[in-house]
């Protein structure tokens, strides 16, 4: 019965997404999956830095909370590893991305959302900053300083190993 699988619970779709990721991994990610096999609505991802940018070689853990209304409402994603980025809060890891708030549509998946976050790394919006310090450097066009600062944090705050 095809329609019974279309229940309102996000479980089936999350399993499909997980399967999709496993057979077609996302290049932006090192790993992605539920934190715990029994808890399918709490995922964790490790994102890779973009080669050729200041984020090169970085690794960041992300925490993904999936609401029961998923995919009608967006997942809550935040950086667990501190990242120096104008649109990410350094302390809480909150991400300022319209995709995660107003312009979410059910057509997005966890993987595509993480790809968008990965793209945000290279296309920052210093005009709606969550990290004022680095955004200020960008706005004053001190790109050398900004890059140095980002490289510093990318190196010092690199995610290492599996911690739960």
């Amino acid at each position, binding site marked *: 019965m*095809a*329609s*019974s*699988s*279309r*229940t*309102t*619970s996000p479980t*089936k*779709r999350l*399993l*499909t*997404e*997980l*399967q*999709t990721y*496993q*057979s*077609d991994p996302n290049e932006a990610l090192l790993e992605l*999956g539920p934190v715990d*096999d029994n808890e399918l*609505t*709490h995922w964790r991802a490790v994102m890779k830095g973009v080669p050729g940018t200041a984020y090169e070689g970085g690794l960041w853990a992300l925490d993904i*909370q999936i*609401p*029961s*209304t998923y*995919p*009608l*409402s967006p997942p*809550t994603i935040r950086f667990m590893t501190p990242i120096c980025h104008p649109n990410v809060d350094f302390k809480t890891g909150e991400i300022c991305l319209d995709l995660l708030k107003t*312009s979410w*549509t*059910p*057509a997005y*998946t966890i993987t595509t959302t993480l790809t968008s976050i990965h793209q945000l790394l290279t296309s920052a919006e210093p005009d709606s900053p969550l990290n004022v310090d680095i955004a200020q450097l960008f706005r004053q066009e001190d790109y050398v300083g900004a890059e140095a600062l980002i490289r510093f944090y990318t190196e010092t705050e690199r995610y290492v190993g599996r911690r739960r």
Partner: protein
Amino acid sequence: MDSSFDLPDSTDWIATSLPSFEPLEASLRCEVCKEFYNNPVITQCAHTFCSICIRRCITADGKCPACKSGVSSERLVPNIAVREIVKKFQEARPKALDLARHKHDETSDSPSAKKRKLDDTDLEQSEGGRQTRSRRTKSSRRGDGLQGAPIQIPDTDDDDGDFEPDDLPEGMVRCPICQKPMKEEQVFSHLNNCPDTTAQTSETGRGKRSRSNNAFSKPSQQRRKPPPKQSSPAPSRLPQLNYHLLKEPALKKKLQEIGIPVWGKKELLERRHLEWLHIWNSNCDSENPRNKRELLKELDTWEQTRGGRAQTTEARVMRKDFDAQGHATMHKNQFDDLIANARRKRESPKSDEVKEEASPTVAGAPDAEHRSEAQPTAEFFTQDVPKPLEGCADNIASIREKVELVNRTGDTLASVRLETISSRGMPASAAEDELPSGSSESAGIANPFTSPSRKVPMFALPEDPVVDVDNSTQV
């Protein structure tokens, strides 16, 4: 995790010999639920979704998930072509995937499937290929058959002497069923109408192939005759209600008329009615509408998972309307315990420190003049300080008394100093040598007691650095 579940998914094709089927299958899947379209409907912006998925989305935000333009549930129209394609694709999928996978397995050692195909038209190459093929399983042989590739299946069997390696011109292949040569692109269309489908089943030595023939021709046979389903006249769609204009009793009455449960508060009634609209109206878009009992069962499933009987296990995600005050009062005991624990922890090491600090300050007092020099190093030795006094409870007690005395009077320094130094086991001579210089600094004595921050270095001074300094001055 990998083996614990197995869901069909468009990426299944990636690792096979037909990776180009991945986008094909992906385009036959709903963007919302990521499954094959079920009762696909087309929106006014010309996007296609499962009926129930788009209806839920419209209830949620009224926008098309693909292009975000406004859509309305009244203007959804069943997309019959897509429905047929999905249906047929789903029927063909398991076998096609199976074949594609086996094909991939056997060609994985050769550079590419394409190259193999061309090579096999050559006589020598097909001779070489024969050896590997004899080890092949039945299903993989079937794989060759469907590909329509020039690989000739029956050559593996010894009794298959009638087979002769063909020398067809390039681009020409034989039908795996009737052996008729034709262009490679034509094979698939030919297979649907191959007149030889049943003719060869009785032939010996080709039993395996004929089995695959039957399996393959099945969908095509079905396609010839349209589904004979004669459904009752399609049920009519239910209209939306404006819940703001309806009072609870009126809404209950509406629900009763429809025939769905009426328990719960108004908010729940609204949600249940909305869900019923989704289920009912999407069923109206279906080719074979289900009866109301099945729909009610589905509504019951909703009730268990999301409706009134759903367990609110969502505590992990903090909701927007989270009642922080209520949470705080509810768990006050736990918070209090934690606070008490934290306080206790913070106080206990402090009391130890006080004990240790109090005693040696007096001993350190005379060395006030060295403080400035020794301060930087003093910090490094603070950790070792407790040692000299360890296990000397009596000494500590007597020292305390002296400290109090000093605090009160301030002029009994000499005696205090002498006794404390001897009690700490320091060489008396060294201590006495200090005396003349240290006793004059009365101002330095008063300060350490008033400012707690300065106690630490003083406390540390009597240790090695002091002795070193003295030695160096003496030498």
